[in-house]
């Protein structure tokens, strides 16, 4: 539709439309289509789709040591925990993207994998945020560290670190308040939380997770860029994939910022969290 190349086959232009409609964005789509048109020799749709999948996967980061597509994948983190290390998961992202719910899901998942897990309610800002997370912690059967609304989020994190060590947990999951990436003061607050974790649990493996709502458009690139700048992003949780959105923006972020998508959220239930499977994702996208 927008390439304007007379020599594009119908298949290429259909693919371009699918990628744009899936929020891959103009630039990433054009890069992919250009490479595809160079590599593809037949116009057999199955061959074209298969090559398309390869190109997208090559552009994204798949083989991180904590990514699920690494042969040892989350088993690496699992092994670390089994060897007595603490893994601290820090959950952050823009308002409403599914952080609190994902903390509950992740706690449930780890608990069921036999990992001693602790949750920290470091969203001391939004009304009923602590109550919401407390309900999830009960459902996951995992203890929770919290303070009153309005307290310093850093203080909750500080407490949680002490608790994590004292109880010798395997995993600490820290929920934070939603924040817009263009609000400097809030981004500085997040940076401070990261510093506290680094300082108070230097021996822990820190996994910094950014939640990206699958229904978000190109603004998610700015979100990921800023969060990466202020806090550093180790992995993306692509939430609400059960919606009518495809979440292609997460692939674009992965390609641009070289960050792996680690988990996908596929619903509002406690079990609706999966290790991100890029092959399964692309199969559904291009079916």
């Amino acid at each position, binding site marked *: 539709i927008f390439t304007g190349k007379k020599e594009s086959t119908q298949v290429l232009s259909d693919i371009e439309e699918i990628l744009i409609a899936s929020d891959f964005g103009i630039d990433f789509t054009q890069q992919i289509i250009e490479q595809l048109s160079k590599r593809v020799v037949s116009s057999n749709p199955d061959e074209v789709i298969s090559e398309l999948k390869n190109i997208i996967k090559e552009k994204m980061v798949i083989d991180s040591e904590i990514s699920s597509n690494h042969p040892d994948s989350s088993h690496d983190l699992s092994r670390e925990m089994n060897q007595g290390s603490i893994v601290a998961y820090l959950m952050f992202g*823009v308002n409403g993207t599914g952080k609190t719910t994902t903390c509950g899901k992740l706690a449930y998942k780890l608990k069921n994998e036999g990992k001693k897990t602790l949750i920290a309610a470091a969203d001391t800002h939004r009304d*009923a945020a602590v*109550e919401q997370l407390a309900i999830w912690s009960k459902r996951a059967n995992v203890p929770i560290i919290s303070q009153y609304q309005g307290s310093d989020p850093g203080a909750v994190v500080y407490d949680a670190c002490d608790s994590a060590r004292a109880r010798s947990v395997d995993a600490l999951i820290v929920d934070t308040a939603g924040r817009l990436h263009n609000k400097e003061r809030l981004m500085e607050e997040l940076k401070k939380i990261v510093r506290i974790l680094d300082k108070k649990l230097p021996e822990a493996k820190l996994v910094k997770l950014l939640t990206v709502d699958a229904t978000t458009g190109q*603004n998610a690139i700015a979100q990921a860029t800023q969060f990466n700048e202020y806090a550093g992003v180790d992995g993306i949780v692509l939430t609400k994939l059960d919606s009518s959105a495809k979440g292609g923006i997460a692939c674009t972020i992965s390609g641009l910022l070289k960050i792996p998508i680690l988990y996908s959220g596929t619903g509002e239930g406690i079990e609706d969290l999966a290790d991100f499977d890029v092959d399964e994702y692309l199969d559904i996208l291009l079916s």
Partner: protein
Amino acid sequence: ALSERLSGVLKKIRGWGSLNESNIKDGIRDIKLALLEADVNYKVVKEFVDDVTKEAMGEKVLKSIKPAQQFTKAVYDGLVRILGVGGGELSIKSGGISVLMLVGLQGSGKTTTCVKLARWVEKNYNKKTLLVAADPYRPAAMEQLDLLGSKNGFTVFKKEKMKPPDICREALEYAKEKSFGAAVLDTAGRLEIDEQMMDELTRIKDKVDPHEILLVADAATGQVAVKVAQGFNERLGITGIILSRMDSDARGGAALSMAYITGKAISFIGTGEKVDDFEKFYPDRIASRILD
């Protein structure tokens, strides 16, 4: 920026008599790309730009303005037209209880908007407004509305162990009893493709016959904005759209997509997490933001 790209095009064009395919061809392409980058749905981009182009074609090029610039102005005017006549209007009747129902995807800002809208109604229409906690599903949703509502001086109607349509019906009876002039219903977030949950909204609508059914959507919504707006509109008949989180740096193209596909106006925008972070919508402001 679009203006930089257009000035490059303008350098090539001199003294054309009227707007035609060739002297605005680059302008058309640049506008389409700019709208896509701003998250306007690609089908809406194509249709909208084609409509504007048809309309603009053959127009005499105005003195002292270059063809591509004139075309951009035509696009801008077209955007403003589609985005609606400007927000702020609500169907609040003088007698009885005006019911405003908020709907939308999960996490779009409904609960926060419920309190903001109530504040607006009280201020601008002088109606004592009841908040109705009709989301029994999300953990601590009712608590969230209760805390936010109460600290801002509102009464919040909550009922445990009851389904949303009945909660809303009972809330209206309570509102009548206590002489409220308006009620804002906070519903649970849901997917427009979730048949059961969409049926529930229809049941609420049938029970309380709202005067306004407002779709609350994130300003940063991507291509799916068309499907979402269409889904809620076809099922319920929405009366307006509220864009939340406009204090982000999202361009807000979803606004154009949703207004275009539903024919409904954007009435308000949310500009922060506080109850006063709520403004009436100005089409020209978002038109510039989208086209920037």
